[in-house]
């Protein structure tokens, strides 16, 4: 292991034990190597240390290299800001430190409301925990506590309680250093200091939920979770967020079979310990009133409850050969895609099984050269034709981290300025529809002057951006104009056309896509040229196509099968419908935008008679061609070479 010896180490003494640790490591981290924990509040490993709360005080000294004597410093020092150096001596336990910690906790508690019984943080609160281990048992404070606003709604998601706040600035530092929107700041000074938005306006950060989790007290709480449960009443399970293609790891907290809240679960390779608000607060669909609970079949004008056998019979009657088609959503499990392909093409003989609604998706390059984590190491990054904070929130955080920590030069080319322009060295806002031209300008295929004129950008700005972008790592999405994508892919640097659908990557891998695309199927259906259409896990009215076209397709197809978790608008056009489980209700695997396949286990029971889509395909498949079916999801994945 050559790498290990490359790290420069220094020798330090912690509580009398000598050890070598990487030079410059913070004391608070270094002592963890001995299994020691120093109490903290303001320190957070992913934020710059500030040394504000003074909870982490330790005794320090220096060992004289000549005679080996140790000279201790008169004052304790903050372990969260002190980097280790050769000969540093640290004591983390002593009577004096016990007194220091007690003193700091006493200070933190004198103005804290101690309303733990009605605080959402109670039971999982660092302030409670540190008080239990290090705090005073009683209070000497008999004066009036500081009063401030309570239950103040900063946004639809975040509630602020300033009486509980201990002014650690974690939330402020998060918005400055990580999400970059700087929407929170300290206001006033001294004992009036408190974090708040500008003029108490709405906290609109797209990553606001993270401040709730990093708050070491109950000052920032989850407005959607407020008073809904005590933490010790919750069951928590490992899960993956499937609200976009980043595949953030999450804790799925549930109670009596219902999801109650989502928290981030650390995965250094993907989301570190962050989530976006769409993921953290966007899991209401589990508890949707419109969940589809039983199969349905149409009798005349009416959709009526039916049993699986009836619907299966109708399906097998309607679907045969290339005159029929299947459209799949882009957030289904890999197992669904694999079994659907096997069943629909292998058993029913139709090649029209697809997930792509745009021509760009169908024709464009789907190359991904970079893992999410490696993006922060890029020297130059060209973000092209995407609004990262919306389309790929966690990729956005990585790109920003690269800029913040390593000084990545970021160039943005897009149709309106967005969060990336806040830190981009060059921002090019082009006229919508001119993506191909501007891409060609980057490739030197059209003159800068012509491209600038056509795209509505000043020539010097475009020239400067093109010069800066030499060898850049390109980040875009699969929905980028396919001509532009081909041009950018041919450039010198890495190229990444990340899929944006939650498991679009899995669909790319599992489906052959050798028949009609989803878009083409709909066009054909609209012309009455498709006898049967099967729609799985997607509402055709929410894929960005004109409504009339969708209605025409649905009305002109003879037989429409809908398999979904809820009664979507498409459902009401169905000939037959099948209830489908959601990811947390079934075992399954999902492949995120960078190509990492992650497993989900069934966490909560399915709603009604809902079944995993792959089980439906297997049950139908053995009706056509009897064989030993797959009985669990893991067998399916193992059978597919694309996921080996």
């Amino acid at each position, binding site marked *: 292991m050559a790498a290990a010896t490359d790290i420069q180490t220094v020798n330090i003494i912690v509580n009398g034990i000598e050890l070598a640790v990487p030079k410059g490591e913070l004391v608070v981290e270094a002592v963890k190597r001995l299994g020691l924990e120093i109490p903290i509040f303001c320190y957070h490993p992913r934020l710059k*240390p*500030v*040394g*504000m*709360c*003074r*909870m982490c*005080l330790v005794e320090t000294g220096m060992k004289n290299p000549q005679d080996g004597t140790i000279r201790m410093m*008169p*004052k*304790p*020092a*903050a372990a969260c*800001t*002190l*980097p280790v*150096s050769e000969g540093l001596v640290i004591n983390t336990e002593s009577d004096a430190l016990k007194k*220091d910690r007690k*003193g*700091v906790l*006493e*200070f*933190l508690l*004198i*103005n804290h409301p101690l309303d733990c019984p009605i605080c959402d943080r109670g039971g999982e609160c660092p302030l409670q925990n540190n008080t239990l281990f290090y705090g005073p048992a009683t209070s*000497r*404070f008999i*004066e*009036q506590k*500081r009063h401030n606003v309570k239950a103040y709604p900063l946004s639809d998601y975040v509630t602020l309680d300033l009486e509980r706040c*201990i*002014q650690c600035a974690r939330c402020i530092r998060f918005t400055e250093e990580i999400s970059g929107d700087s929407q929170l700041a*300290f206001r*006033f*000074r*001294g*004992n*009036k*200091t408190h974090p708040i938005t500008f003029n108490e306006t709405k906290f609109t950060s797209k990553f606001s939920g993270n401040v709730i989790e990093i708050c070491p007290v109950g000052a920032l709480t989850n407005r959607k979770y407020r008073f809904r449960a005590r933490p010790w009443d919750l069951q928590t399970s490992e899960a993956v967020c499937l609200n976009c293609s980043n595949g953030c790891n999450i804790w799925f907290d549930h109670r009596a079979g219902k999801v109650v809240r989502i928290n981030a679960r650390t995965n250094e390779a993907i989301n570190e310990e962050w989530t976006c608000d769409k993921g953290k607060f966007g899991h209401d669909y589990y508890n949707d009133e419109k969940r589809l609970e039983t199969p349905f079949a149409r009798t005349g004008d009416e959709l009526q409850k039916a049993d699986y056998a009836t619907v299966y019979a109708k399906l097998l009657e309607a679907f045969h050969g290339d005159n029929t088609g299947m459209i799949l959503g882009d957030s289904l499990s890999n197992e669904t895609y694999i079994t659907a392909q096997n069943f629909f093409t292998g058993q029913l003989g139709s090649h029209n099984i697809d997930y792509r609604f745009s021509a760009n998706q169908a024709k464009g390059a789907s190359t991904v050269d970079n893992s999410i984590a490696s993006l922060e190491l890029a020297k130059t990054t060209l973000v092209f034709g995407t609004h990262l904070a919306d389309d790929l929130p966690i990729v956005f955080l990585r790109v920003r981290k690269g800029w913040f920590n390593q000084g990545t030069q970021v160039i943005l080319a897009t149709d309106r300025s967005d969060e990336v322009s806040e830190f981009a060295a060059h921002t090019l806002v082009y006229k919508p529809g001119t993506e191909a031209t501007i891409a060609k300008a980057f490739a030197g295929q059209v003159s800068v002057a012509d491209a600038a004129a056509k795209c509505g950008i000043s020539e010097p700005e475009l020239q400067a951006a093109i010069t800066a972008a030499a060898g850049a790592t390109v980040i875009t999405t699969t929905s980028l104009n396919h001509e532009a994508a081909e041009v950018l892919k041919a450039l010198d640097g890495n190229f990444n056309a990340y899929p944006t659908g939650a498991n679009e990557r899995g669909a790319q891998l599992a489906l052959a896509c050798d028949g009609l695309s989803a878009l083409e199927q709909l066009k054909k259906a609209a012309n009455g040229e498709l006898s049967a259409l099967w729609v799985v896990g997607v509402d055709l009215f929410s894929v960005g196509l004109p409504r009339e076209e969708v209605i025409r397709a649905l009305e002109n197809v003879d037989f429409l099968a809908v398999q979904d978790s809820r009664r979507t608008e498409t459902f009401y056009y169905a000939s037959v419908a099948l209830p489908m489980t959601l990811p947390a209700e079934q075992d399954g695997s999902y492949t995120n935008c960078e190509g990492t396949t992650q497993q989900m286990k069934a966490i909560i029971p399915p709603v009604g008679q809902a079944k995993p889509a792959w089980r439906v395909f297997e049950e139908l498949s053995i009706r056509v061609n009897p064989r030993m079916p797959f009985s669990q999801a893991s067998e399916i994945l193992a059978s597919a070479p694309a996921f080996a």
Partner: protein
Amino acid sequence: MAEYKLLLKHSDDPATQTLAGYKKAGGYSGLAKALKMERQAVIDEVKTSGLRGRGGAGFPSWIKWNGLPKEKVKPHYVLCNADEGEPGTFKDKMLMETAPFQLIEGMTIAGFAVQGDVGYIYIRGEFIDAAKALRKAIDEAYANNLLGKNILGTDFSYDLHIHLGAGSYECGEESALMSSLMGERGMPRLKFPHAPLPTVSGVWERPTLINNVESYSCVPHIIDKGGEWYATLGASTKNSRGTKIFSVSGHVNKPGNYEIEFGTPLKELLEMAGGVKGGKLKACIPGGSSMPVIKPDAVDVAIIGYEEMGEVKSMVGSGGCMFFNEHTDIVMLAWRTAHFYANESCGKCTPCREGTRWMVQIMDRIVAGNGQKGDMELLTEVANNVEGRSFCALGDAAAWPIKAFIRQFPEEFEYWIEHGKSPVTSKEALALVP
């Protein structure tokens, strides 16, 4: 000993506030001399002089000067701390108002010695008169090639800007001053060994020299007359050289700034200020409100010097010397001091933010007549928990005086707590309670 006017020599002559007048009085000969010297020789001269920081800490100035990289790769900045805010101190104000060129010359010499590119004088916002005087002088210096490009025909170029604060005592702390200069809240920054020294990575993460107004004002004299000559002043003390301006106020007949040689007895300073008015001496805060209070017997023996003042358990500090007469209610003094630090705490660290307020609340209760047995011990305990635990020295500054007041005058606290009223019954004392 009497006053020794070096920095304040021409303070009563408005003519020296013009360039011509300043030059006539011998000004700018220091800079002319420095520009002919090696940079290191200028620093060595400061070393020889034994100059120590006049802002309060008394750190040897030359170590800072010598700490900036000799191989320059980034711009170097020279900052002047003119955020004089320590209660009882008003010397920097006077130096800027009456001898602006002296400061500018000192900062220019410093800029030359440390290869500075830009200097900033950070003046507290309230000192508009001082800023006006400096602006006039800086404009004149620019017009006469004493600032700007190629000063006096050499290849040394140096810009000097004035930056005004906006009301914060904390910004007098050097790292908080840098935060403020960079457009942040005036909160202190991490210091060595938690972060590099400012001389290596200071303002805008570039090498930075920061000194007090009085320190820079000494420099022209040190260069002009030589460090050795300067070191003869105050030679009777252990390690304090030169002169020091003391701002004397409180119950004295002639409050004002008095420049004395180190080694002068404190009681002579009191005599210079016309002695105590309105009664006998009761207490003295010798170096600004952060410094521990001393009693008359200590005033009688105290010698002014950085080490010497330690012998009476106090410090030179910034030189804000306040004398109080026998009608002074010490508890009210402690009460007002506690309020000052609570109002000026920046709020960054827990002990100072919470502790200063707690001390105020206890003091408020005592002076409202609701003191309780054990309050003195609690106050001392709270002060102990602030002292040494806070992020910057403001915490210590808030704790020291409270502890000293209780240590030196326990009987007055006891009286207040027991009787709910002041032990001092004179009309003046009663008027103090707001």
